[in-house]
């Protein structure tokens, strides 16, 4: 059974119905340098950009089953920058003709009082983690290579433990709904990263167990 086509999903409050096209993969720590080297060659000329972020995932439980999820992110390396609030819709992976996972995506910048605000609205934090790594760009494509760490003491981003011996690699594009041609570009870019990294559309629901 397929979810209803993403294009028909209602997004309230956003002027444009933006979709995130996503491919995911991972690279072992020891192969990271080779990957970064290749990405530097493949992506647009720019200064290498690194980041250290703290992400908090909030849930709002309604009367019915599935909770409403919002992701709040802040930069640890630039503490004065605004927070980033993101809503991600249900991922759609079924369409074989599309080479990337597609999901609804709403991004908003927020002030530093975002956690308090969400708490007041009834959201509760479900989990948090830190991500640090590198960002590359190629046209509209964004490539993020990041190390995920779990936070050992809640709220203390200094005290973390890495989640695995690999870096998460994500290739994503934000585009208005229905522009499936971007997934073609993404696939050809992903081809160029083989055999270092295999970027695929991964159904997150299959990773639940």
């Amino acid at each position, binding site marked *: 059974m397929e979810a*209803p086509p993403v294009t028909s999903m209602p997004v309230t409050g956003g002027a444009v119905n933006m979709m995130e096209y996503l491919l995911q993969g991972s690279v072992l720590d020891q192969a990271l340098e080779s990957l970064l080297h290749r990405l530097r060659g493949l992506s647009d000329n720019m200064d290498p950009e690194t980041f250290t972020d703290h992400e908090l995932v909030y*849930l709002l439980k309604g*009367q019915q*089953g599935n909770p409403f999820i919002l992701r709040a992110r802040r930069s640890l390396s630039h503490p004065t920058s605004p927070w980033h609030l993101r809503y991600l819709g249900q991922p759609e992976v079924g369409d074989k003709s599309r080479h990337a996972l597609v999901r609804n995506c709403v991004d908003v910048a927020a002030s530093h009082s975002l956690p308090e605000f969400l708490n007041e609205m009834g959201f509760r*934090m479900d*989990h948090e983690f830190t991500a640090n790594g590198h960002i590359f760009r190629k046209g509209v494509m964004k490539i993020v290579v990041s190390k995920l760490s779990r936070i050992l003491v*809640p709220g203390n981003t200094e005290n973390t433990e890495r989640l*695995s*011996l*690999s870096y998460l690699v994500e290739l994503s594009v934000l585009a208005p709904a229905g522009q499936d041609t971007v997934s073609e570009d993404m696939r050809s870019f992903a081809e160029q990263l083989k055999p270092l990294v295999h970027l695929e559309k991964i159904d997150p629901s299959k990773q639940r167990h």
Partner: protein
Amino acid sequence: MQQREEKQLEAAVESLISRVAHVKNALHSFIYKLENEYERLTWPSVLDNFALLSGQLNTINKLLKNEKTPSFRNQVIIPLLLSPDRDEDLAKLTELRVPVFSHEIVPDYLRTKPDPEVEEQEKQLSVEAARIGPEVAQKQIQTLNKLCSNLLEKLNNPRDDRDSETAAIRQSKPSFNPADTNALVGAVAFGKGLSKCRPPGPVAPGHPGQGPMMSGGPTLQQVTIGGGSVQQAGMGGPVAPQQQGQPGRRPGELGKIPSSIKTNIKSASGSMHPYNR
């Protein structure tokens, strides 16, 4: 007897001239190519030209060292007449390179010894060489040989190392691990492997000690377990009306959630509802 020697000399000079003419022609055509066809000239053909020149020079060397060739060293050339005037015959003979046979140029063209400066340098070097005893010289030669062989070894070995390294990377060393990919994707999607570090959570007032499940309500993982396992079961189920504000809900999911989880969610979410306070 003398006649025979003279004939030999003549023949030797003759063949030397023809060989030199060959070298000259080769040089000529090479220079022409470099100047006029440098756009189409490929490196291999440049190398071919060099090989040709070096071959011809080699032949000349062989010819000079040949036993049958009389020693040109024993022949003496004496300038009989020097003149500051232009000599048309000479110019024609030398392709306009030497138009005048004068005092200025004769010492250069008929020189058999090196330049005075070069001679001076050579003298210094031989003095230097004589100063060092043969033992010291032998020692220096050995040191130099050792250095050279070490360097050669270093230059040759890294190539092997590098080759084996790249081969190893290509063959056996995987650069990624699918299990890690799944773990990381699970973590960013719904906090798999992260939730155990969840803060104790805001316990709803008035509901203390309702068990671990209740404190803070169901987590994302716990909730989605129900949703995930139902996706196949819901195939032919009754189609529930689409809930507003819950985009992407699969029809049929509602009625199929295992009852225990459902109750948990309900009671928890009921107590957690923000607007109940």
